[in-house]
Structures are given as C-alpha cells and as structure tokens.
C-alpha cells in the first residue's frame, strides 16, 4: 500500500469513475448505498450479505479503485484497515471490524470532493442477512 494507484490503474481515479461499476451490484439511492440503519442519521447505512467481510472488501476495492491507498492503524500500531484518497478529494476508508458492533464498515467522505458523482457522506455497515 502507499505506492501507485489501487488496482494499478495508471491514473488516479475520481470516485465518479467507479460508481457505474459499483452500482451494478450495490445500487445508489438518493446518494446513498444500502438501506438506512437504526440511527436517526440517514448517512449511517446497512448492506446485508451472507458474508459481510467479503462483501465489505469487494465494495471497498471497487469504490476505491484507482485511488492512493494507505493503511490505517490503531493506537498500538496494528493495521485496522485502509484509507484511499481519490482524485476528486473523496476519502474512502475500510475498517475490517468496527469497534462499535464488530461489523466491517466502509466510510465515504465527500466533504472535500470537487465531484462526488452524486454520492453523499456516509458510513456503511456490512451486516449478516
């Protein structure tokens, strides 16, 4: 991690370039993936699957394709996931395990994005069917 572009794409992707592929399997509704979770905040989403870990990794690898990826660490220096910066300024972060509920999660932060392709800021938990 940290060298080149994720997936060896040859150029740094904007998140908008990845949405057509990702949305084939993970539909986008009003800027959000998945369904609304239990929170009052609509930006917290759920995607259900038989294998949440594999689904989270598949989703992350595709939505972050062509970005610049680095590990994220916990306070002890252990790898807890990865974060990828896209050409439009979007930051996508994958955590193998959320400390809150143990589910894998992917965050999409478009706050500094110049073109998010219509996506909104969101945190997606991948949960068992």
């Amino acid at each position: 991690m940290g060298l080149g572009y994720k997936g060896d794409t040859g150029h740094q992707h904007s998140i908008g370039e990845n949405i057509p592929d990702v949305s084939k399997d993970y539909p986008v509704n009003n800027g959000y993936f998945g369904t609304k979770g239990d929170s009052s905040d609509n930006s917290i989403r759920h995607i259900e699957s038989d294998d949440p870990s594999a689904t989270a990794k598949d989703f992350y690898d595709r939505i972050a394709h062509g970005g610049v990826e680095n590990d994220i660490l916990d306070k002890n220096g252990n790898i807890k996931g990865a974060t990828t910066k896209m050409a439009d300024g979007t930051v996508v972060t994958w955590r193998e395990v959320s400390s809150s509920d143990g589910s894998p999660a992917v965050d999409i932060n478009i706050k500094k994005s110049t073109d998010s392709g219509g996506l909104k800021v969101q945190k997606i938990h991948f949960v068992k069917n």
Partner: protein
Amino acid sequence: MKTIDIRLKSDEVSKLRSMIGKELSAYLHDEFQYTQSSSQVVEVVVGDKKYYIYSFTEEQDYFGTPEDVAVWSVTDEKLPIVDKKTFVRTPVNETIKGITLIQENQRVFNDGVQTYDVWLTRGMVFDLGERQVAFEKDVWFSEEIIVHRGYDLSSRFSSTDNFGDDWDKSLRTECSRIEEEIMPE
C-alpha cells in the same frame, strides 16, 4: 438529556498553553493528495519539543446508536503510528502568539425536548502574528486532520449549516461554535 463531551481535556489544553510564546519550528503531515489533510496524526514541533495531534476512532453513543467516532487528543507521547509515516515537514520558524480552540456544540431535539447535547473540539488555530496555521477535525467518523494555512482560518472551517440535514424529519437539530482563546501561562 444525554450529554457527551469529547472536547480536548484540561491536560491537553495545558500542553497547548505551554506552547504559547515559543517558536513553532515546523509541523509534519502526510503528503497531500488533492486534499490538505493528514490521516490520524500531525506532528507539531515547538522549539525542540515534539507534540502530536492524534485522531483515532473510538466507540461513542452517536445520537442513539453505538458508532466509531473520531476523537482528538494532543500529547507528547509518540505512538507507533508515527514511525510508520512518511511525513512531509513544513518549516514555520515563527513565534506562537496565541492558540484558539474551535469548540462545537451539537443539540438534538425530539418533540421539542432536547435529547442530546454534544461538545467536541472542531479544531485549533495557531496565531503566528502575520499568519495562521490551523488543524480541523473532519466529519464525525473520519480520522483525517485537515491542515489550513493563511489568514482568518476559522472562517475556512466547514460550515455548521449542514448538521442534521439528512436526519429524520421528526427531529430538530442545532449546531453552533465558540472560539475559545487559550490564555497564556
């Protein structure tokens, strides 16, 4: 009403206070990739002493559900992550005239009754006289630390207007900030 306070603690504010009047030699951060932000840590060198602004997620009550929320800390303790970084060093070599904390208050009301009162430190502004350097906390789940350079930097922080935009319409939300100048020793 539930009250949550994840502002910098008094000992962390004391560390910032001890920097006032000393030289900000440099700050170190990730190489910027389209956005001027550093993931999880920024190093601040004051005189010959190193301090670290960390942003790590921890489990918090996020308005009714447990979520991983980014929480800031300021310390001189070097965590293992620092040695795993390839930092870019930005020299400053100017005296810190003052430091202002940007404290944010988020309030949620259900049927007119306040249910949450949340305080967090949105960021800090180092006043160097002719210019400023500031560090801003990103969105609630993000461990990114946004770096600003220039003038009147608190006005460049993200707006509070969008807080609660995509929440259940049955709830009313308010968000405001105060600028809290740290008094020198």
